[in-house]
C-alpha cells in the first residue's frame, strides 16, 4: 500500500458542497421514541453510561440503608431477611450492573473518538448489549422491592444457594441478572478487541495507541478468558438448582469449592477488568493536565499487560481460609503480592508525569479526583498487601477489614477515576461543562465522606466484626466505629447527590463551543459531529494534537482520509492490526429495530424461564432467534462495488473475507470464549475427579459404554469435516446460484449435532443418569456444552442455506459461510476433545 509522507494532505482541495449534509443525514440519530433504534456509538454509549450510573445510584442507596441499620447495635431499622437481600443486591449491582457496564460504556463512547473512527465495527451489537442489559438489570434490581431478591451474597456460594437451603426463585434471579451481564460483556469484548485492533486511524501503530485503548484491549482480552469461568459456574448452579445434577453437593461427589474456584477464577480478574481501564483513563487525564506526555508509556503498557496476566494467577487468595494445603497458600500469596508491582509502576509514572509538567499541575475537579484516586487507591493497594499475607488473611478475611480494603480498591480504583472522567470528558458530549465551583464541593464531600466511612472499618474488622452481619450486639467495642462509618456514608452520599443535581442542571447533549477545552493531545478532542470526525487523520505520534499543528483544522476541512461517504452508507476505514495501514472500507449497519427485538425477546425468554413459564419462554427464544436472523440478513452485503478512493491515491475495497475481515476477527474472539468455557469445564471435570474419584466409572457409576459409541461419534465428526472441504468447492461463481455448498454445510452441522446425540445415547443406554452423582453430571455436561455449540451451528447453517436460496452466497460473498464453517470446525474439535476426555480418562486412570 502506498503511503504518502505525513505533510502531504490526502485530500488537499476544497470539498464539494453538500458533502457534510450527506454525512449528517447518513449518521443521523433518529428523533423521538425512534431514538430506541439508534446505534451510533455516541448515542448508545451515553445511554449505556447513564444507565450504569443509575445502577450506581440505586445500589448506593441500598448501601445507605445498610449503614443506617448498622449505625447502632441491635437495630431494627430493616429486617434480617431484607438486609440479607440488600447486601446481596448491593454487591451484585455494583460489580455486575454498574462497574463492568460503565467501563464498556466508556469504551463504546470514547474509543471511536480516540481512534478517530466513525464508529466501532459492530454498532448493532453494542446496541443489543445495552438493551439486554437494561431489561435484565432493571428486572433483577426490582426484585428487592417485592421480596424476591437473592440473598446469598454477591458470590452466591453453594450449598447455601442450592434449592435445599435457598428455595424459591430468589437465587434464580441472581443467575438471570448475571446471565445478562455475561451476554453484554462478551458482546462488548468482541466489539472492543476488533475495534482497537482494526479501526485505528492510519499511522496509529500499536506503540502510538492511547493508553486507554490499550487498557480496553486488555480489558476485552481478560473478559474473553475470565467470563467463561463464571458463565460455566452459573450454568452448573442453575442446572443443579433446576434438575438436581450434583456438581456442588458433597454427598454425591460434588464439591462446594468447585464453585469457589470457578467463581474466583473469574472474580479476581474481574477486579482488574474494572480497574485497568480506569487506570487507563487516569493515564489519559494526567498528561493533559500536566501538559506533558506520559512518563514511562512503555512501562505502563507492560504494567497493564502484566497486571492482566498475573490477575489470573491469584484467585485462590479469596480461598485462603478454606483449608487448602500450605504449598498452594505460599504460591498464591506470592502471586498476590506480585500483582502489586504493576500498580506501583503506574502510580509512580503518574507522579513522574505530574512532576514533568512545564507549569505546575492545574487543580481542576477532574485533577482533584485523580489525586483523590491516587491516595485512596494507594491505601487500597497496601491493605491488599496485608490481606495477601496468608496468616494475616486468616484474621482479616471476611471481616470488615476486607470490606474496607475492597472499597478502597474499587471506589478508589474505579469510582474516583470515573468521576474524573465525568468532569474531564463531559465537554465532549455536552454543550455545557459541569460546574467547577460545585465540583469542588462534590470532590471534598465524596473524598472526606469516603474516608470517614471506610477508614474506621479497618479497625472494626480487626476488632472482630465479620462482614454480612445484619446486626451486632453492644459491648464489643464496635458501636462508635460503626456510627462514624454511617455518618461518613451520608457525607459521601451528599457529594454524589450534589453531582447529580449539577449534572441535571448542566448536561445538554450536543456540540460544545470550545472543541478542546483542556488543550489535550489525543484525537477525541478533534472537532466532531454525529459522523464523528469530518475526515480521518493520519497520525504520527501519541499526542497528534500537540505534535501535528493544524491537524484539527485540516481534519475539519475534510483534507484527510474518507471525508465523504463513497458507498452511500455508514462506513469507516479498517487498518492493519499492528501498523495501522489502511486495508479496506467497512460498511456498517445503521439504525434498526431487529437488534432491539432480539434483546427484548432474549431478556423475556430468560425472565420467563426464571419464573418457570417454560412454553412462553420457548416462544420468546424462537422470536429472539428470528430477530437475530432478520438482523444478520442485511449484514453480508457482498463486494458489489469497485474499490473506492479515500484520498491520497489510496483505493480500498469495500468487502473482505478471510483473516483481514472484521467478521473473521469477531468469530475468532467468540471461538476463544467458547474454548475458554470448555477449558473451564475440563478443569471442573478433573477437579471433581481429584476430590471424589470414588464416584467415577467403573466403580462408582455404571461402566462406560463400549468404545463403539465414541468411535461412531468420532466418525460422524470426521465425515462432517470431510463434507466441509467439498462444500467449499461447491460455492458458485458470483452471479450464479448453487445450493450445493450451503446444503453440504448444513449436512456437516447435522453430523456435529448427531455426534453429540450419539454420545448422549451411549451413556444413557449404559444406565448412567446425570443426577446419579458428580461423575454422571459431568459426563452429561460435556454433551450439553457440545450440543450448545451444535445448536448455534445448525441455526447458522440454516441461515447460510437461506442465503444460498436467495442468491446471496457465492465464492466472493461468503462471510456467513466462512463464519459458520469456523464455528463448525471448532465445535467438531471440542466434541472430539470431549470424547477423548469422557471415554479416555476413566479408562486411563481406572
Amino acid at each position: 500500500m502506498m503511503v504518502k509522507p505525513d505533510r502531504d494532505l490526502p485530500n488537499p482541495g476544497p470539498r464539494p458542497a453538500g458533502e457534510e449534509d450527506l454525512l449528517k443525514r447518513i449518521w443521523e440519530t433518529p428523533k423521538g421514541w425512534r431514538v430506541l433504534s439508534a446505534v451510533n456509538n455516541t448515542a448508545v454509549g451515553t445511554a449505556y453510561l447513564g444507565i450504569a450510573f443509575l445502577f450506581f445510584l440505586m445500589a448506593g442507596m441500598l448501601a445507605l440503608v445498610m449503614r443506617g441499620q448498622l449505625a447502632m447495635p441491635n437495630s431494627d431499622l430493616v429486617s434480617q431477611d431484607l438486609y440479607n437481600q440488600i447486601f446481596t443486591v448491593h454487591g451484585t449491582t455494583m460489580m455486575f450492573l454498574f462497574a463492568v457496564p460503565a467501563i464498556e460504556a466508556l469504551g463504546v463512547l470514547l474509543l471511536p473518538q480516540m481512534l478517530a473512527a466513525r464508529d466501532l465495527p459492530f454498532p448493532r451489537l453494542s446496541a443489543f448489549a445495552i438493551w439486554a442489559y437494561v431489561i435484565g438489570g432493571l428486572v433483577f434490581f426490582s426484585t428487592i422491592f417485592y421480596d424476591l431478591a437473592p440473598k446469598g451474597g454477591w458470590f452466591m456460594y453453594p450449598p447455601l444457594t442450592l434449592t435445599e437451603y435457598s428455595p424459591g426463585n430468589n437465587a434464580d434471579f441472581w443467575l438471570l441478572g448475571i446471565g445478562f451481564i455475561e451476554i453484554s460483556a462478551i458482546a462488548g469484548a468482541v466489539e472492543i478487541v476488533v475495534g482497537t485492533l482494526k479501526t485505528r486511524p492510519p499511522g496509529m501503530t500499536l506503540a502510538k495507541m492511547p493508553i486507554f485503548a490499550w487498557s480496553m484491549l486488555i480489558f476485552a482480552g481478560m473478559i474473553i478468558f475470565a467470563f467463561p469461568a463464571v458463565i460455566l459456574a452459573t450454568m452448573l448452579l442453575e442446572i443443579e438448582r433446576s434438575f438436581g445434577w450434583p456438581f456442588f453437593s458433597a454427598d454425591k461427589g460434588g464439591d462446594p469449592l468447585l464453585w469457589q474456584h470457578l467463581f474466583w477464577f473469574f472474580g479476581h480478574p474481574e477486579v482488574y477488568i474494572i480497574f485497568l481501564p480506569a487506570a487507563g483513563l487516569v493515564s489519559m487525564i494526567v498528561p493533559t493536565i500536566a501538559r506533558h506526555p506520559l512518563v514511562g508509556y512503555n512501562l505502563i503498557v507492560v504494567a497493564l499487560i502484566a497486571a492482566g496476566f498475573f490477575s489470573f494467577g491469584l484467585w485462590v487468595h479469596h480461598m485462603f481460609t478454606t483449608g487448602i494445603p500450605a504449598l498452594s497458600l505460599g504460591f498464591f500469596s506470592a502471586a498476590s503480592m506480585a500483582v502489586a508491582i504493576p500498580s506501583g509502576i503506574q502510580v509512580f509514572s503518574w507522579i513522574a508525569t505530574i512532576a514533568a509538567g512545564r507549569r505546575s499541575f492545574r487543580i481542576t475537579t477532574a485533577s482533584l479526583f485523580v489525586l483523590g484516586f491516587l491516595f485512596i487507591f494507594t491505601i487500597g493497594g497496601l491493605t491488599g498487601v496485608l490481606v495477601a499475607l496468608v496468616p494475616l488473611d486468616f484474621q482479616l478475611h471476611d471481616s470488615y477489614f476486607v470490606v474496607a480494603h475492597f472499597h478502597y480498591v474499587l471506589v478508589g480504583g474505579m469510582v474516583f477515576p470515573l468521576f474524573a472522567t465525568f468532569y474531564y470528558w463531559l465537554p465532549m458530549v455536552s454543550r455545557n461543562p459541569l460546574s467547577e465551583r460545585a465540583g469542588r464541593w462534590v470532590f471534598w464531600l465524596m473524598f472526606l465522606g469516603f474516608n470517614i466511612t471506610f477508614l474506621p472499618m479497618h479497625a472494626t474488622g480487626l476488632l472482630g466484626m465479620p462482614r454480612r452481619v445484619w446486626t451486632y450486639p453492644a459491648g464489643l467495642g464496635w458501636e462508635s466505629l460503626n456510627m462514624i462509618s454511617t455518618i461518613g456514608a451520608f457525607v459521601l452520599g451528599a457529594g454524589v447527590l450534589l453531582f447529580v443535581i449539577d449534572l441535571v442542571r448542566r448536561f445538554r447533549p450536543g456540540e460544545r463551543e470550545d472543541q478542546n477545552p483542556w488543550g489535550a493531545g489525543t484525537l477525541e478532542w478533534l472537532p466532531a459531529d454525529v459522523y464523528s470526525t469530518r475526515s480521518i487523520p493520519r497520525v504520527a505520534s501519541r499526542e497528534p494534537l500537540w505534535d501535528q499543528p493544524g491537524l484539527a483544522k485540516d481534519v475539519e476541512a475534510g483534507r484527510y482520509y474518507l471525508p465523504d461517504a463513497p458507498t452511500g452508507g455508514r462506513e469507516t476505514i479498517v487498518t492493519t492490526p499492528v501498523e495501522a495501514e489502511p486495508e479496506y472500507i467497512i460498511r456498517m449497519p445503521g439504525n434498526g429495530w431487529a437488534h432491539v427485538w432480539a434483546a427484548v425477546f432474549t431478556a423475556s425468554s430468560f425472565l420467563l424461564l426464571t419464573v418457570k413459564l417454560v412454553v412462553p419462554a420457548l416462544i420468546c427464544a424462537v422470536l429472539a432467534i428470528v430477530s437475530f436472523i432478520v438482523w444478520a440478513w442485511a449484514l453480508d452485503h457482498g463486494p458489489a462495488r469497485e474499490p473506492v478512493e479515500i484520498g491520497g491515491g489510496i483505493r480500498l475495497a469495500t468487502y473482505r473475507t478471510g483473516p483481514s475481515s472484521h467478521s473473521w476477527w469477531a468469530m475468532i474472539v467468540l471461538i476463544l470464549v467458547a474454548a475458554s468455557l470448555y477449558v473451564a469445564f475440563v478443569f471442573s471435570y478433573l477437579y471433581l475427579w481429584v476430590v471424589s474419584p470414588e464416584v467415577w466409572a467403573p466403580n462408582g457409576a455404571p461402566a462406560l459404554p463400549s468404545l463403539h459409541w465414541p468411535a461412531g461419534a468420532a466418525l460422524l465428526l470426521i465425515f462432517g469435516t470431510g463434507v466441509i472441504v467439498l462444500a467449499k468447492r461447491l460455492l458458485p461463481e458470483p452471479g450464479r446460484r448453487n445450493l450445493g455448498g450451503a446444503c453440504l454445510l448444513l449436512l456437516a452441522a447435522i453430523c456435529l449435532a448427531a455426534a453429540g446425540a450419539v454420545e448422549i445415547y451411549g451413556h444413557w443406554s449404559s444406565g448412567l443418569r446425570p443426577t446419579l452423582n458428580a461423575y454422571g453430571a459431568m459426563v452429561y455436561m460435556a454433551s450439553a456444552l457440545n450440543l450448545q455449540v451444535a445448536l448455534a451451528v445448525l441455526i447458522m447453517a440454516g441461515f447460510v442455506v437461506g442465503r444460498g436460496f436467495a442468491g446471496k452466497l457465492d465464492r466472493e460473498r461468503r462471510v456467513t459461510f466462512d463464519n459458520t464453517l469456523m464455528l463448525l470446525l471448532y465445535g467438531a474439535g471440542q466434541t472430539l476433545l470431549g470424547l477423548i476426555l469422557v471415554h479416555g480418562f476413566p479408562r486411563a486412570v481406572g
Partner: protein
Amino acid sequence: MTRSPVRPHLVLAVAGIALAGCEGVQSALYASGVEAREIRLLFWVATGVCAAVLLLVMVIGTLALAGSTRVRAWLAREQLVIALGLILPVVVLSGLLTYALLVLQAGAARNASATDSSVTIVGKRWWWEVVYRDADGRSVVSANELRLPLGRPVSLRLVSDDVIHSFWAPNIAGKLDMIPGRVNRLTIQSDKLGVSRGQCAEYCGGPHALMAFHVVTLPDAEYQAWLAREASTARVPTTAAQRRGAALFIESGCGACHSIRGTEARGTIGPDLTHVGSRVSIGAATLPADAASFARWITDNQHIKPENLMPPFRHLAPEDLDALAAYLASLD
C-alpha cells in the same frame, strides 16, 4: 458417677465478663492465643511498613505537585518509576512475604505435631455442636461454647453438614472454614484464662449474624474436672418447679430435637442441653443462660433470632414457662 464440685463462682465470673461487655472480647488485637499473638505481631510490622510506603508516596506526590522546578525535574524521569515502582516493591514485598511464610510454616508445624486432644466442631444453621473426647475416648456432646485447657495445644476438627460456615475466635487464632464433605484441622493454644467470643465468619444465610460462641479457658485441672462433669448425665431436678419443668420438657415434645442425657429426650437436631445451665450463653451467644432468658427464648426466639430452626412455643401457661425455664437453668 461422682460429680465434681460445682463452681458457680466461675460460671458467674465468666458470664459477668462476657455480658457486662468488654472491648476486646472478640478482637484480633487482644490476642490470648499463640497463633493470634504471632499474627498480631505480623500485622503491626506489615502495617508499619505499609504506612512508611504510603508516606513515601505522599511525600513524592506532594513534591511532584508543588516542589521547586529543580526537584520536579529530578522526579520526572523513568528511573524514578523503575526505582520506586519496580525495585522498591520487589524488595519490600519479598521481605514481608518471607516473614509471613515463616509464620504460616509455624502454624502448619503446630498442626502437624498436635496429636493431643481433639475437639470436633460441627457448623450448623445457626449454632455450633462441640464434641469433646473424654479420658476414656468417649464423645462428650456440648454446644455453642468451646472450653480449652490453659497452655495446651488443642486440635480442632472443623466440619459442616449443611452449608459453609467459618470458625473464627479472633483472640485465639485466625479463621478456618467448615465445608460440607471436608474436614479442616486447626490447632489452637490459649494462653490466657477467661472468656473470649467468636463468631461465624462465612455468610451462611438467615441469622448468620447471630451465630456466635464463647471460648472459655480454664486451668488444666479445672478443665479436666469440667470435662468429666460435662460427660455425666444431667442433674436431677430438685425443686418442685424443676420437676414440673422436666416433665413439661418431655410433654411439649422438646426431646424431638434436643437431648438431655439421663432423660427420655434424645433429639439430635438442636443443641444438646444436658448441661446448658452451666454455659455462658444460649442461642449461640445471643442471650445469657439464666432462667429469664430461657423463658424469653422459648416463646420469642423467632424475634430474638429470626429464621432460626426452632419454632416458638407460645402456648405454655406462664407458670409452666417459668417451671421449664427453671429446669433448664438448673442443668449445670
